[in-house]
């Protein structure tokens, strides 16, 4: 490690000690998907993400999950998520009700 990398490393650790910890940051990351963040929240989050790869990945994963679910919701107009269908008993019960209501 050169002196520059060592310095960068120390600066990051120094910062991470002074910033809101990951436990509080993940709450803000989740809220960033729900509402606009305040200026203070935005700045603190940005600096935290600069020094903490874990929280960078956390934010990325939440975005992957959201995009995956929305995309598949569009596709599931053709085929809903693989899950069991109606049980034979339920199917029969509903059928009887439909027949009874037709008369």
């Amino acid at each position, binding site marked *: 490690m050169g002196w520059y990398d060592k310095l960068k490393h120390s600066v990051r650790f120094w910062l*991470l000690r002074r910033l809101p*910890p*990951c*436990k*509080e940051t*993940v*709450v803000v990351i*989740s*809220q960033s*998907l*729900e*509402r606009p963040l305040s200026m203070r929240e935005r700045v603190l989050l940005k600096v935290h993400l600069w020094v*903490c790869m*874990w*929280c960078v*990945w*956390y934010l*990325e*994963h*939440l975005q*992957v*999950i*959201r*995009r*995956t*679910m*929305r*995309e*598949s*919701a569009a*596709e*599931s107009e053709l085929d*809903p*998520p*693989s*899950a069991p*269908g*109606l*049980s034979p008993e*339920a*199917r029969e*019960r*509903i*059928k009887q*009700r*439909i*027949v009874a*209501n*037709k008369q």
Partner: protein
Amino acid sequence: MSEVQRKASKQLPDAGVWLDQHGDYLFKYASFRLRDPAAAEDAVQETFLAALKAYERFEGRGSERTWLVGILKHKITDHFRRIAREAPMGQEGDEGPEHAEFFTRTDGWDDHWNNEYAPTEWHATPSQLVEQGDFWRVFHDCLSPLPQRTASAFTLREIDGLSSAEICELLGIRLNNLWVMLHRARLHLRNCLQLNWFGQKH
């Protein structure tokens, strides 16, 4: 008999055929959102009965499937409203597990990620995930341990894309409840997906 002929004669659909064509689809749609098979069966039954009553008014604009799903959406909404009335939001804990262990460390870096639970890099794009049917099973299983209302809030937000205000009204909760519920659902789900999906070879 084709759908066109059936409509021309205003004849009501055969119950068995109707169920074969749409029953499973509607049930999957409902159970994914309600997370309660009995409630999903009820919603499907109510949908067919309502559709039967209104069949005269279905004039074949768009497909029968789309029309039925439209009715089902209302039945699902009714169900949520009923639950919100009958079982109002209780105390702490109703929102889901806190997972404090994710941020417990013994090396002086308390409240930062515990290495064991920390996020790792995922090598997959959303479309790759959607194509893999297995993903949905894992996803469904991962949501299961969450309280029903938290899982529903999460599905309504992330799949149906409802606004926060709409979900609060539907589930009878306050905005702060919703944010806590979504946060806990995400914390739990992300970890579970990493353990059971991204950490595995496919």
